[in-house]
Protein backbone atom coordinates (compact mmCIF):
# COMPACT_ATOMS: atom_id res chain seq x y z
CA UNK A 1 0.00 0.00 0.00
CA UNK A 2 1.31 3.44 -0.83
CA UNK A 3 2.20 5.79 2.03
CA UNK A 4 -0.45 8.25 0.83
CA UNK A 5 -3.13 5.59 1.14
CA UNK A 6 -1.89 4.69 4.63
CA UNK A 7 -2.28 8.35 5.53
CA UNK A 8 -5.82 8.29 4.18
CA UNK A 9 -6.60 5.28 6.34
CA UNK A 10 -5.08 7.05 9.32
CA UNK A 11 -7.42 9.99 8.77
CA UNK A 12 -10.44 7.70 8.55
CA UNK A 13 -9.35 5.93 11.74
CA UNK A 14 -8.99 9.31 13.47
CA UNK A 15 -12.46 10.47 12.47
CA UNK A 16 -13.93 7.17 13.65
CA UNK A 17 -12.15 7.19 17.00
CA UNK A 18 -12.54 10.90 17.74
CA UNK A 19 -16.30 10.44 18.18
CA UNK A 20 -15.91 7.57 20.62
CA UNK A 21 -15.18 10.15 23.29
CA UNK A 22 -11.71 9.06 24.38
CA UNK A 23 -9.27 11.94 25.06
CA UNK A 24 -8.09 12.98 21.60
CA UNK A 25 -4.42 13.45 22.52
CA UNK A 26 -3.94 9.80 23.45
CA UNK A 27 -5.71 8.56 20.34
CA UNK A 28 -3.53 10.80 18.18
CA UNK A 29 -0.29 9.49 19.66
CA UNK A 30 -1.38 5.89 19.26
CA UNK A 31 -2.59 6.33 15.68
CA UNK A 32 0.50 8.32 14.75
CA UNK A 33 2.79 5.61 16.10
CA UNK A 34 0.84 2.76 14.50
CA UNK A 35 0.28 4.20 11.05
CA UNK A 36 3.64 5.95 11.02
CA UNK A 37 5.47 2.70 11.72
CA UNK A 38 3.47 1.02 9.00
CA UNK A 39 4.24 3.81 6.55
CA UNK A 40 7.90 4.60 7.17
CA UNK A 41 9.22 2.43 10.00
CA UNK A 42 11.54 3.44 12.82
CA UNK A 43 11.72 7.11 11.89
CA UNK A 44 8.35 7.60 13.51
CA UNK A 45 9.93 7.10 16.95
CA UNK A 46 12.37 9.94 16.40
CA UNK A 47 9.54 12.07 15.09
CA UNK A 48 7.56 11.59 18.31
CA UNK A 49 10.42 12.75 20.53
CA UNK A 50 11.44 15.50 18.16
CA UNK A 51 7.93 16.95 18.06
CA UNK A 52 7.47 16.65 21.83
CA UNK A 53 10.70 18.42 22.63
CA UNK A 54 10.16 21.04 19.94
CA UNK A 55 6.80 21.93 21.48
CA UNK A 56 8.38 22.16 24.93
CA UNK A 57 10.95 24.59 23.56
CA UNK A 58 8.37 26.67 21.64
CA UNK A 59 8.58 29.77 23.76
CA UNK A 60 5.69 31.50 21.94
CA UNK A 61 3.33 28.93 23.42
CA UNK A 62 4.30 30.05 26.93
CA UNK A 63 1.68 32.74 26.34
CA UNK A 64 -0.97 30.09 26.96
CA UNK A 65 -0.29 29.59 30.70
CA UNK A 66 0.58 33.27 31.15
CA UNK A 67 -2.61 34.72 29.66
CA UNK A 68 -4.76 32.06 31.30
CA UNK A 69 -3.12 32.85 34.64
CA UNK A 70 -3.72 36.56 34.12
CA UNK A 71 -7.39 36.05 33.29
CA UNK A 72 -7.98 33.66 36.16
CA UNK A 73 -6.41 35.98 38.69
CA UNK A 74 -8.54 38.92 37.59
CA UNK A 75 -11.66 36.82 37.51
CA UNK A 76 -11.15 34.99 40.81
CA UNK A 77 -10.30 38.21 42.63
CA UNK A 78 -13.72 39.51 41.60
CA UNK A 79 -12.18 42.25 39.47
CA UNK A 80 -14.00 41.14 36.36
CA UNK A 81 -17.34 41.21 38.15
CA UNK A 82 -16.52 44.63 39.51
CA UNK A 83 -15.90 45.87 35.99
CA UNK A 84 -19.25 44.47 35.00
CA UNK A 85 -21.00 46.25 37.86
CA UNK A 86 -19.29 49.57 37.20
CA UNK A 87 -20.20 49.67 33.52
CA UNK A 88 -23.71 48.59 34.40
CA UNK A 89 -24.14 51.45 36.86
CA UNK A 90 -22.62 53.99 34.55
CA UNK A 91 -24.93 53.09 31.71
CA UNK A 92 -27.89 52.37 33.99
CA UNK A 93 -30.23 54.93 32.49
CA UNK A 94 -29.98 53.44 29.03
CA UNK A 95 -32.31 50.79 27.69
CA UNK A 96 -30.36 47.56 27.26
CA UNK A 97 -27.39 48.79 29.26
CA UNK A 98 -26.64 45.29 30.58
CA UNK A 99 -26.18 44.04 27.02
CA UNK A 100 -23.59 46.71 26.50
CA UNK A 101 -21.65 46.01 29.70
CA UNK A 102 -21.80 42.27 28.98
CA UNK A 103 -20.30 42.87 25.53
CA UNK A 104 -17.66 45.17 26.97
CA UNK A 105 -16.49 42.68 29.59
CA UNK A 106 -16.56 39.84 27.07
CA UNK A 107 -14.36 41.80 24.69
CA UNK A 108 -11.82 42.63 27.37
CA UNK A 109 -11.68 39.28 29.07
CA UNK A 110 -11.68 36.71 26.33
CA UNK A 111 -8.27 35.52 27.38
CA UNK A 112 -9.52 34.62 30.82
CA UNK A 113 -10.56 31.22 29.64
CA UNK A 114 -9.01 30.34 26.31
CA UNK A 115 -11.66 27.83 25.35
CA UNK A 116 -15.26 28.42 24.36
CA UNK A 117 -16.79 26.26 27.06
CA UNK A 118 -15.13 28.19 29.87
CA UNK A 119 -15.71 31.60 28.31
CA UNK A 120 -19.48 31.22 27.81
CA UNK A 121 -19.87 29.63 31.23
CA UNK A 122 -18.03 32.47 32.92
CA UNK A 123 -20.03 35.18 31.22
CA UNK A 124 -23.27 33.32 31.92
CA UNK A 125 -22.51 33.09 35.63
CA UNK A 126 -21.77 36.79 35.81
CA UNK A 127 -24.51 38.25 33.65
CA UNK A 128 -27.51 35.92 33.61
CA UNK A 129 -28.72 36.65 37.11
CA UNK A 130 -28.59 40.41 36.72
CA UNK A 131 -30.41 40.23 33.41
CA UNK A 132 -33.16 38.16 34.99
CA UNK A 133 -33.45 40.56 37.89
CA UNK A 134 -33.78 43.55 35.57
CA UNK A 135 -36.46 41.69 33.58
CA UNK A 136 -34.43 41.52 30.42
CA UNK A 137 -35.62 39.52 27.44
CA UNK A 138 -34.37 35.94 27.75
CA UNK A 139 -33.70 35.37 24.06
CA UNK A 140 -31.73 38.54 23.69
CA UNK A 141 -29.78 37.90 26.90
CA UNK A 142 -28.88 34.37 25.85
CA UNK A 143 -27.86 35.64 22.44
CA UNK A 144 -25.57 38.35 23.76
CA UNK A 145 -23.93 36.04 26.33
CA UNK A 146 -23.16 33.29 23.83
CA UNK A 147 -22.08 35.79 21.18
CA UNK A 148 -19.88 37.66 23.63
CA UNK A 149 -18.42 34.49 25.09
CA UNK A 150 -17.46 33.12 21.70
CA UNK A 151 -16.16 36.48 20.50
CA UNK A 152 -13.74 36.59 23.43
CA UNK A 153 -11.95 33.62 21.86
CA UNK A 154 -11.08 35.72 18.82
CA UNK A 155 -10.15 39.11 20.30
CA UNK A 156 -6.51 39.47 21.40
CA UNK A 157 -4.99 38.43 23.72
CA UNK A 158 -6.35 35.19 22.39
CA UNK A 159 -5.05 31.76 23.25
CA UNK A 160 -6.46 30.41 20.01
CA UNK A 161 -4.37 32.85 17.94
CA UNK A 162 -1.28 31.92 19.97
CA UNK A 163 -1.73 28.29 18.98
CA UNK A 164 -2.61 29.19 15.40
CA UNK A 165 0.57 31.18 14.79
CA UNK A 166 3.06 28.29 14.75
CA UNK A 167 0.57 26.07 12.89
CA UNK A 168 0.25 28.60 10.09
CA UNK A 169 3.86 29.69 10.20
CA UNK A 170 3.08 33.37 10.78
CA UNK A 171 4.03 35.58 13.75
CA UNK A 172 1.42 35.79 16.50
CA UNK A 173 1.74 39.57 16.39
CA UNK A 174 0.38 39.58 12.82
CA UNK A 175 -2.57 37.50 13.93
CA UNK A 176 -3.25 39.79 16.88
CA UNK A 177 -3.17 42.84 14.65
CA UNK A 178 -5.31 41.08 12.08
CA UNK A 179 -7.94 39.99 14.58
CA UNK A 180 -8.30 43.33 16.32
CA UNK A 181 -10.46 45.20 13.81
CA UNK A 182 -12.74 42.28 12.87
CA UNK A 183 -13.18 41.52 16.57
CA UNK A 184 -14.08 45.07 17.50
CA UNK A 185 -16.27 45.31 14.40
CA UNK A 186 -18.25 42.23 15.45
CA UNK A 187 -18.59 43.51 19.02
CA UNK A 188 -19.89 46.80 17.62
CA UNK A 189 -22.37 45.01 15.35
CA UNK A 190 -23.70 42.99 18.30
CA UNK A 191 -23.97 45.99 20.59
CA UNK A 192 -25.65 48.14 17.95
CA UNK A 193 -28.14 45.41 17.17
CA UNK A 194 -29.01 44.94 20.85
CA UNK A 195 -29.33 48.66 21.51
CA UNK A 196 -31.45 49.35 18.43
CA UNK A 197 -33.80 46.50 19.33
CA UNK A 198 -34.07 47.88 22.87
CA UNK A 199 -34.65 51.38 21.60
CA UNK A 200 -37.52 50.19 19.43
CA UNK A 201 -38.91 47.93 22.13
CA UNK A 202 -37.79 48.99 25.62
CA UNK A 203 -39.32 45.89 27.24
CA UNK A 204 -36.44 43.83 25.79
CA UNK A 205 -34.02 45.56 28.13
CA UNK A 206 -35.62 48.08 30.46
CA UNK A 207 -33.40 50.75 31.98
CA UNK A 208 -32.34 50.09 35.56
CA UNK A 209 -34.63 51.44 38.21
CA UNK A 210 -33.46 54.53 40.07
CA UNK A 211 -32.38 52.80 43.28
CA UNK A 212 -30.21 50.32 41.42
CA UNK A 213 -28.15 53.07 39.94
CA UNK A 214 -25.36 54.95 41.61
CA UNK A 215 -26.62 57.90 43.66
CA UNK A 216 -24.20 60.70 42.93
CA UNK A 217 -21.94 61.42 40.02
CA UNK A 218 -19.00 61.75 42.42
CA UNK A 219 -19.41 58.28 43.88
CA UNK A 220 -19.83 56.93 40.38
CA UNK A 221 -16.64 58.54 39.24
CA UNK A 222 -14.65 57.11 42.16
CA UNK A 223 -16.07 53.67 41.49
CA UNK A 224 -15.22 54.04 37.82
CA UNK A 225 -11.62 54.99 38.52
CA UNK A 226 -11.18 52.22 41.07
CA UNK A 227 -12.97 49.47 39.20
CA UNK A 228 -12.25 50.07 35.59
CA UNK A 229 -9.18 52.12 34.95
CA UNK A 230 -6.49 49.81 36.39
CA UNK A 231 -7.71 46.72 34.55
CA UNK A 232 -8.14 48.50 31.27
CA UNK A 233 -4.71 50.07 31.59
CA UNK A 234 -3.22 46.69 32.42
CA UNK A 235 -4.73 44.95 29.41
CA UNK A 236 -3.98 47.78 27.03
CA UNK A 237 -0.38 48.12 28.19
CA UNK A 238 0.22 44.40 27.87
CA UNK A 239 -1.24 44.39 24.35
CA UNK A 240 0.28 47.75 23.58
CA UNK A 241 3.78 46.54 24.44
CA UNK A 242 3.25 43.67 22.00
CA UNK A 243 1.88 45.84 19.19
CA UNK A 244 4.55 48.48 19.62
CA UNK A 245 7.26 45.85 19.45
CA UNK A 246 8.63 46.75 22.89
CA UNK A 247 8.00 43.21 24.09
CA UNK A 248 7.59 39.87 22.37
CA UNK A 249 4.08 38.42 22.72
CA UNK A 250 5.32 36.07 25.43
CA UNK A 251 6.89 38.93 27.36
CA UNK A 252 3.70 40.93 26.97
CA UNK A 253 1.79 38.02 28.43
CA UNK A 254 4.22 37.85 31.35
CA UNK A 255 3.77 41.58 31.95
CA UNK A 256 0.01 41.10 31.96
CA UNK A 257 0.29 38.27 34.47
CA UNK A 258 2.62 40.28 36.68
CA UNK A 259 0.29 43.27 36.47
CA UNK A 260 -2.73 41.25 37.52
CA UNK A 261 -0.76 39.78 40.41
CA UNK A 262 0.03 43.33 41.51
CA UNK A 263 -3.61 44.38 41.07
CA UNK A 264 -4.85 41.58 43.31
CA UNK A 265 -2.36 42.79 45.92
CA UNK A 266 -3.39 46.43 45.55
CA UNK A 267 -7.08 45.54 45.82
CA UNK A 268 -6.23 43.38 48.85
CA UNK A 269 -7.81 40.36 47.25
CA UNK A 270 -4.70 38.22 47.34
CA UNK A 271 -4.99 35.17 49.58
CA UNK A 272 -3.30 31.80 49.73
CA UNK A 273 -6.33 29.88 48.45
CA UNK A 274 -6.87 32.38 45.63
CA UNK A 275 -3.32 32.01 44.42
CA UNK A 276 -3.39 28.24 44.83
CA UNK A 277 -6.67 27.87 42.94
CA UNK A 278 -5.42 30.10 40.16
CA UNK A 279 -2.15 28.25 39.59
CA UNK A 280 -3.90 24.87 39.70
CA UNK A 281 -6.56 25.92 37.22
CA UNK A 282 -3.90 27.50 35.00
CA UNK A 283 -2.06 24.18 34.95
CA UNK A 284 -5.20 22.28 34.05
CA UNK A 285 -6.26 24.57 31.20
CA UNK A 286 -2.70 24.85 29.84
CA UNK A 287 -2.12 21.10 29.88
CA UNK A 288 -5.39 20.34 28.22
CA UNK A 289 -4.45 22.59 25.33
CA UNK A 290 -0.70 22.03 25.18
CA UNK A 291 -0.59 18.26 25.52
CA UNK A 292 -2.99 18.16 22.60
CA UNK A 293 -0.59 20.46 20.75
CA UNK A 294 2.19 17.92 21.31
CA UNK A 295 0.02 15.04 20.13
CA UNK A 296 -1.31 16.92 17.10
CA UNK A 297 2.12 18.12 16.04
CA UNK A 298 3.26 14.52 16.07
CA UNK A 299 0.18 13.27 14.25
CA UNK A 300 0.47 16.08 11.71
CA UNK A 301 4.16 15.33 11.21
CA UNK A 302 3.40 11.69 10.45
CA UNK A 303 0.52 12.65 8.21
CA UNK A 304 2.46 15.07 6.06
CA UNK A 305 5.43 12.71 5.85
CA UNK A 306 3.08 10.10 4.42
CA UNK A 307 2.29 12.66 1.73
CA UNK A 308 -1.47 12.50 2.03
CA UNK A 309 -2.13 16.26 2.34
CA UNK A 310 -0.49 16.84 -1.04
CA UNK A 311 -2.64 14.16 -2.64
CA UNK A 312 -5.78 15.66 -1.16
CA UNK A 313 -4.92 19.17 -2.23
CA UNK A 314 -3.87 18.05 -5.74
CA UNK A 315 -7.18 16.25 -6.08
CA UNK A 316 -9.18 19.30 -5.07
CA UNK A 317 -7.04 21.63 -7.17
CA UNK A 318 -7.41 19.22 -10.09
CA UNK A 319 -11.13 19.92 -10.14
CA UNK A 320 -10.20 23.38 -11.42
CA UNK A 321 -12.88 25.11 -9.46
CA UNK A 322 -12.89 28.80 -8.82
CA UNK A 323 -10.59 29.41 -5.84
CA UNK A 324 -13.39 31.00 -3.88
CA UNK A 325 -15.49 27.87 -4.36
CA UNK A 326 -12.68 25.82 -2.82
CA UNK A 327 -12.40 28.34 0.01
CA UNK A 328 -16.10 28.02 0.70
CA UNK A 329 -15.81 24.20 0.70
CA UNK A 330 -13.01 24.45 3.27
CA UNK A 331 -14.96 26.91 5.39
CA UNK A 332 -18.07 24.73 5.26
CA UNK A 333 -16.02 21.75 6.46
CA UNK A 334 -14.59 23.78 9.35
CA UNK A 335 -18.08 25.02 10.19
CA UNK A 336 -19.38 21.46 10.47
CA UNK A 337 -16.36 20.26 12.48
CA UNK A 338 -16.83 23.07 14.97
CA UNK A 339 -20.19 21.73 16.12
CA UNK A 340 -18.81 18.81 18.10
CA UNK A 341 -15.20 19.95 18.51
CA UNK A 342 -13.40 22.65 20.47
CA UNK A 343 -11.17 24.89 18.38
CA UNK A 344 -8.04 23.07 19.57
CA UNK A 345 -8.34 19.91 17.45
CA UNK A 346 -9.67 21.85 14.46
CA UNK A 347 -6.79 24.30 14.41
CA UNK A 348 -4.21 21.63 15.12
CA UNK A 349 -5.40 18.75 12.96
CA UNK A 350 -7.62 20.05 10.19
CA UNK A 351 -5.98 23.36 9.33
CA UNK A 352 -2.52 21.88 8.55
CA UNK A 353 -4.20 19.52 6.06
CA UNK A 354 -5.72 22.32 3.99
CA UNK A 355 -2.99 24.89 4.50
CA UNK A 356 -0.76 23.88 1.53
CA UNK A 357 -3.79 24.08 -0.73
CA UNK A 358 -4.75 27.53 0.49
CA UNK A 359 -1.20 28.74 -0.07
CA UNK A 360 -1.21 27.35 -3.59
CA UNK A 361 -4.44 29.17 -4.33
CA UNK A 362 -2.69 32.41 -3.45
CA UNK A 363 -4.82 33.48 -0.50
CA UNK A 364 -3.21 35.59 2.21
CA UNK A 365 -2.53 33.33 5.19
CA UNK A 366 -3.17 35.95 7.87
CA UNK A 367 -6.52 36.69 6.28
CA UNK A 368 -7.26 32.96 6.04
CA UNK A 369 -6.44 32.50 9.74
CA UNK A 370 -8.82 35.25 10.84
CA UNK A 371 -11.46 33.94 8.47
CA UNK A 372 -11.21 30.57 10.21
CA UNK A 373 -11.50 32.25 13.59
CA UNK A 374 -14.65 34.16 12.61
CA UNK A 375 -16.06 31.08 10.93
CA UNK A 376 -15.48 28.97 14.04
CA UNK A 377 -17.26 31.57 16.09
CA UNK A 378 -20.24 31.47 13.73
CA UNK A 379 -20.41 27.72 14.10
CA UNK A 380 -20.40 27.98 17.89
CA UNK A 381 -23.51 30.14 17.65
CA UNK A 382 -25.52 27.82 15.42
CA UNK A 383 -28.24 25.98 17.30
CA UNK A 384 -29.11 23.29 18.09
CA UNK A 385 -25.79 21.53 17.64
CA UNK A 386 -23.41 24.19 18.90
CA UNK A 387 -22.26 23.44 22.41
CA UNK A 388 -22.48 27.06 23.63
CA UNK A 389 -26.21 26.61 24.18
CA UNK A 390 -25.59 23.77 26.62
CA UNK A 391 -22.80 25.57 28.44
CA UNK A 392 -25.15 28.48 29.01
CA UNK A 393 -28.05 26.22 29.97
CA UNK A 394 -25.73 24.69 32.56
CA UNK A 395 -25.28 27.98 34.42
CA UNK A 396 -28.68 29.52 33.64
CA UNK A 397 -31.01 26.54 34.07
CA UNK A 398 -34.05 28.81 34.40
CA UNK A 399 -33.82 29.74 30.70
CA UNK A 400 -35.62 27.38 28.30
CA UNK A 401 -33.33 25.88 25.67
CA UNK A 402 -35.72 26.96 22.93
CA UNK A 403 -35.24 30.60 23.96
CA UNK A 404 -31.49 30.19 24.10
CA UNK A 405 -31.60 28.77 20.56
CA UNK A 406 -33.69 31.64 19.26
CA UNK A 407 -31.34 34.18 20.82
CA UNK A 408 -28.27 32.52 19.36
CA UNK A 409 -29.90 32.35 15.95
CA UNK A 410 -30.26 36.14 15.80
CA UNK A 411 -26.60 36.65 16.55
CA UNK A 412 -25.59 33.91 14.15
CA UNK A 413 -27.21 35.94 11.38
CA UNK A 414 -25.19 39.01 12.45
CA UNK A 415 -22.11 36.82 12.53
CA UNK A 416 -22.71 35.62 8.96
CA UNK A 417 -22.92 39.25 7.88
CA UNK A 418 -19.58 39.86 9.62
CA UNK A 419 -18.05 36.82 7.95
CA UNK A 420 -19.24 38.01 4.55
CA UNK A 421 -17.73 41.45 5.21
CA UNK A 422 -14.37 39.88 6.06
CA UNK A 423 -14.44 37.80 2.86
CA UNK A 424 -15.50 40.68 0.61
CA UNK A 425 -13.22 43.29 2.21
CA UNK A 426 -9.95 41.54 3.21
CA UNK A 427 -8.65 44.97 4.19
CA UNK A 428 -10.65 44.71 7.44
CA UNK A 429 -8.09 42.10 8.46
CA UNK A 430 -5.01 43.13 6.54
CA UNK A 431 -4.93 46.87 7.03
CA UNK A 432 -3.64 46.96 10.62
CA UNK A 433 -0.86 44.36 10.30
CA UNK A 434 0.23 46.14 7.13
CA UNK A 435 0.45 49.50 8.87
CA UNK A 436 2.16 48.10 11.98
CA UNK A 437 4.66 45.61 10.72
CA UNK A 438 5.63 45.78 7.10
CA UNK A 439 7.13 47.73 4.27
Amino acid at each position, binding site marked *: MSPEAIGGLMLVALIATIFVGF*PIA*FTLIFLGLGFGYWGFGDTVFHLLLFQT*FATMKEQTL*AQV*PLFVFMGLLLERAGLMERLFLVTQKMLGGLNGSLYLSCMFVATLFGAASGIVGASVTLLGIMAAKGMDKSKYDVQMSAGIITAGGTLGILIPPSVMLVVMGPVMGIPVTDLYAGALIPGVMLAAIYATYALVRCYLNPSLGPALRKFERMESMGALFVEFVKGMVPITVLLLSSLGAIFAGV*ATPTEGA*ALGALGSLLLTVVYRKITGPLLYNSVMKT*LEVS*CMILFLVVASNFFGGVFSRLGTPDVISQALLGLELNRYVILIIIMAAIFLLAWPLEWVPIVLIFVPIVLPMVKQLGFDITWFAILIAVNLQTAWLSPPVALSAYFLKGVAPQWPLSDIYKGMMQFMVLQIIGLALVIIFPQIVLWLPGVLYTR
Partner: protein
Amino acid sequence: MRTNSGALVRAIRGIDTVSDWSGRIAAWLVIPLVFVMSWEILVRKVHQPTYWAFDLSYMLFGALFMLGTAYTLYRGSHIRTDFLYQTWPVKVQASVDAFCYLFFFFPGMVIFLWLAQDYALVSWQRQELSMQSSWMPPIYPLKAVIPVSIALLLLQGVAEFMKCIYAFRHGEWLTKQRSIEEVLADEMPLEDPGAPANGQAR
Protein backbone atom coordinates in the same frame (compact mmCIF):
# COMPACT_ATOMS: atom_id res chain seq x y z
CA MET B 1 -23.68 -9.14 41.64
CA ARG B 2 -21.50 -9.07 44.70
CA THR B 3 -18.77 -6.56 44.72
CA ASN B 4 -15.82 -5.92 46.88
CA SER B 5 -14.03 -2.91 45.56
CA GLY B 6 -12.17 -1.85 48.69
CA ALA B 7 -8.73 -2.78 47.38
CA LEU B 8 -9.54 -1.31 43.98
CA VAL B 9 -10.62 2.00 45.47
CA ARG B 10 -7.56 2.09 47.72
CA ALA B 11 -5.29 1.63 44.71
CA ILE B 12 -7.16 4.30 42.74
CA ARG B 13 -6.94 6.77 45.60
CA GLY B 14 -3.24 6.05 46.02
CA ILE B 15 -2.45 6.84 42.40
CA ASP B 16 -4.79 9.85 42.41
CA THR B 17 -2.81 11.25 45.31
CA VAL B 18 0.46 10.89 43.41
CA SER B 19 -0.97 12.71 40.39
CA ASP B 20 -2.55 15.34 42.56
CA TRP B 21 0.80 16.10 44.14
CA SER B 22 2.62 16.11 40.81
CA GLY B 23 0.15 18.78 39.75
CA ARG B 24 0.52 20.76 42.93
CA ILE B 25 4.26 20.92 42.39
CA ALA B 26 4.24 21.59 38.64
CA ALA B 27 1.56 24.29 38.86
CA TRP B 28 3.82 26.68 40.80
CA LEU B 29 6.28 26.84 37.90
CA VAL B 30 4.07 29.54 36.38
CA ILE B 31 5.19 31.99 39.09
CA PRO B 32 8.93 31.94 38.26
CA LEU B 33 7.93 31.99 34.58
CA VAL B 34 6.12 35.29 35.15
CA PHE B 35 9.01 36.81 37.09
CA VAL B 36 11.83 35.64 34.83
CA MET B 37 10.18 37.13 31.77
CA SER B 38 9.11 40.34 33.47
CA TRP B 39 12.63 40.80 34.84
CA GLU B 40 14.03 40.40 31.35
CA ILE B 41 11.89 43.24 29.99
CA LEU B 42 12.76 45.53 32.90
CA VAL B 43 16.47 44.92 32.74
CA ARG B 44 16.54 45.26 28.98
CA LYS B 45 14.88 48.66 29.22
CA VAL B 46 17.30 50.11 31.74
CA HIS B 47 20.47 48.15 31.09
CA GLN B 48 20.98 45.21 28.75
CA PRO B 49 19.24 41.89 28.12
CA THR B 50 19.95 39.02 30.46
CA TYR B 51 21.73 36.05 28.96
CA TRP B 52 19.64 33.51 30.84
CA ALA B 53 15.99 34.59 30.60
CA PHE B 54 15.23 33.03 27.24
CA ASP B 55 16.50 29.55 28.10
CA LEU B 56 14.95 29.62 31.51
CA SER B 57 11.55 30.66 30.15
CA TYR B 58 11.11 27.76 27.74
CA MET B 59 12.48 25.33 30.31
CA LEU B 60 9.93 26.45 32.90
CA PHE B 61 7.18 26.40 30.31
CA GLY B 62 8.09 22.96 28.91
CA ALA B 63 8.33 21.41 32.36
CA LEU B 64 5.08 23.09 33.45
CA PHE B 65 2.74 21.58 30.93
CA MET B 66 4.46 18.20 30.53
CA LEU B 67 4.56 17.51 34.28
CA GLY B 68 0.93 18.60 34.53
CA THR B 69 -0.51 16.06 32.09
CA ALA B 70 -1.01 13.33 34.71
CA TYR B 71 -2.81 15.81 36.95
CA THR B 72 -4.98 16.90 34.02
CA LEU B 73 -5.93 13.28 33.35
CA TYR B 74 -6.76 12.85 37.03
CA ARG B 75 -9.00 15.91 36.79
CA GLY B 76 -10.62 14.48 33.66
CA SER B 77 -9.79 17.58 31.63
CA HIS B 78 -8.06 16.24 28.54
CA ILE B 79 -10.18 17.34 25.60
CA ARG B 80 -12.61 14.69 24.46
CA THR B 81 -15.56 14.73 22.09
CA ASP B 82 -18.26 13.72 24.48
CA PHE B 83 -21.52 14.70 22.82
CA LEU B 84 -22.26 11.03 22.07
CA TYR B 85 -20.41 9.64 25.06
CA GLN B 86 -22.54 11.68 27.51
CA THR B 87 -25.72 10.00 26.33
CA TRP B 88 -24.53 6.45 26.95
CA PRO B 89 -25.30 4.46 30.11
CA VAL B 90 -22.45 4.33 32.61
CA LYS B 91 -21.60 0.71 31.86
CA VAL B 92 -21.24 1.43 28.16
CA GLN B 93 -19.05 4.47 28.93
CA ALA B 94 -16.89 2.34 31.20
CA SER B 95 -16.52 -0.44 28.66
CA VAL B 96 -15.61 1.93 25.83
CA ASP B 97 -13.11 3.76 28.03
CA ALA B 98 -11.58 0.53 29.27
CA PHE B 99 -11.23 -0.69 25.70
CA CYS B 100 -9.54 2.56 24.65
CA TYR B 101 -7.15 2.49 27.61
CA LEU B 102 -6.17 -1.11 26.86
CA PHE B 103 -5.74 -0.79 23.10
CA PHE B 104 -4.83 2.89 22.53
CA PHE B 105 -3.49 4.42 25.69
CA PHE B 106 -1.29 1.69 27.20
CA PRO B 107 0.46 0.59 23.98
CA GLY B 108 1.04 4.19 22.87
CA MET B 109 2.29 5.43 26.23
CA VAL B 110 4.47 2.40 26.97
CA ILE B 111 6.28 2.93 23.67
CA PHE B 112 6.48 6.66 24.38
CA LEU B 113 7.96 6.02 27.84
CA TRP B 114 10.49 3.52 26.55
CA LEU B 115 11.62 5.91 23.79
CA ALA B 116 11.68 8.91 26.10
CA GLN B 117 13.79 7.33 28.82
CA ASP B 118 16.34 6.31 26.17
CA TYR B 119 16.29 9.83 24.71
CA ALA B 120 16.82 11.43 28.12
CA LEU B 121 19.44 8.90 29.21
CA VAL B 122 21.63 9.51 26.15
CA SER B 123 21.38 13.25 26.70
CA TRP B 124 22.20 12.85 30.40
CA GLN B 125 25.24 10.67 29.74
CA ARG B 126 26.60 13.20 27.27
CA GLN B 127 25.81 16.07 29.67
CA GLU B 128 24.24 17.74 26.68
CA LEU B 129 24.08 21.56 26.59
CA SER B 130 21.42 23.79 25.05
CA MET B 131 22.43 25.45 21.79
CA GLN B 132 19.65 28.03 21.85
CA SER B 133 21.68 30.92 23.26
CA SER B 134 25.16 31.95 24.29
CA TRP B 135 24.48 30.84 27.86
CA MET B 136 24.42 27.14 26.83
CA PRO B 137 22.89 25.71 30.01
CA PRO B 138 22.50 21.94 30.48
CA ILE B 139 19.49 20.69 28.53
CA TYR B 140 19.37 17.13 29.86
CA PRO B 141 17.18 17.94 32.88
CA LEU B 142 14.50 19.26 30.55
CA LYS B 143 14.76 16.14 28.41
CA ALA B 144 14.40 14.06 31.56
CA VAL B 145 11.08 15.79 32.17
CA ILE B 146 9.59 13.82 29.25
CA PRO B 147 10.01 10.28 30.66
CA VAL B 148 9.04 11.45 34.15
CA SER B 149 5.85 13.08 32.82
CA ILE B 150 4.92 10.10 30.67
CA ALA B 151 5.57 7.70 33.56
CA LEU B 152 3.22 9.74 35.76
CA LEU B 153 0.68 9.85 32.96
CA LEU B 154 0.90 6.10 32.46
CA LEU B 155 0.41 5.56 36.19
CA GLN B 156 -2.67 7.78 36.23
CA GLY B 157 -3.90 5.84 33.18
CA VAL B 158 -3.79 2.69 35.31
CA ALA B 159 -5.96 4.43 37.90
CA GLU B 160 -8.38 5.60 35.20
CA PHE B 161 -8.59 2.04 33.89
CA MET B 162 -9.40 0.83 37.39
CA LYS B 163 -12.08 3.51 37.65
CA CYS B 164 -13.65 1.96 34.53
CA ILE B 165 -13.70 -1.43 36.27
CA TYR B 166 -15.30 0.16 39.31
CA ALA B 167 -17.92 1.92 37.17
CA PHE B 168 -18.67 -1.29 35.31
CA ARG B 169 -19.18 -3.19 38.55
CA HIS B 170 -21.21 -0.56 40.33
CA GLY B 171 -23.07 1.13 37.52
CA GLU B 172 -21.85 4.55 38.59
CA TRP B 173 -18.60 6.47 38.42
CA LEU B 174 -16.46 6.74 41.49
CA THR B 175 -16.81 10.36 42.50
CA LYS B 176 -13.78 12.40 43.42
CA GLN B 177 -15.02 13.26 46.90
CA ARG B 178 -15.93 9.81 48.16
CA SER B 179 -13.43 8.44 50.61
CA ILE B 180 -12.53 4.79 50.99
CA GLU B 181 -14.57 4.63 54.20
CA GLU B 182 -17.74 5.74 52.43
CA VAL B 183 -17.22 3.21 49.68
CA LEU B 184 -16.66 0.44 52.22
CA ALA B 185 -19.74 1.51 54.18
CA ASP B 186 -21.76 1.38 50.98
CA GLU B 187 -20.61 -2.10 50.31
CA MET B 188 -21.75 -3.56 53.60
CA PRO B 189 -25.40 -4.03 52.54
CA LEU B 190 -24.20 -5.66 49.36
CA GLU B 191 -23.25 -8.71 51.40
CA ASP B 192 -26.98 -9.38 51.27
CA PRO B 193 -27.37 -11.30 48.00
CA GLY B 194 -30.75 -9.75 47.32
CA ALA B 195 -29.50 -6.18 47.26
CA PRO B 196 -29.26 -4.58 43.84
CA ALA B 197 -25.71 -3.94 42.72
CA ASN B 198 -26.35 -0.46 41.45
CA GLY B 199 -28.81 0.70 44.03
CA GLN B 200 -26.34 2.80 45.97
CA ALA B 201 -27.33 6.27 46.88
CA ARG B 202 -24.76 9.01 46.77
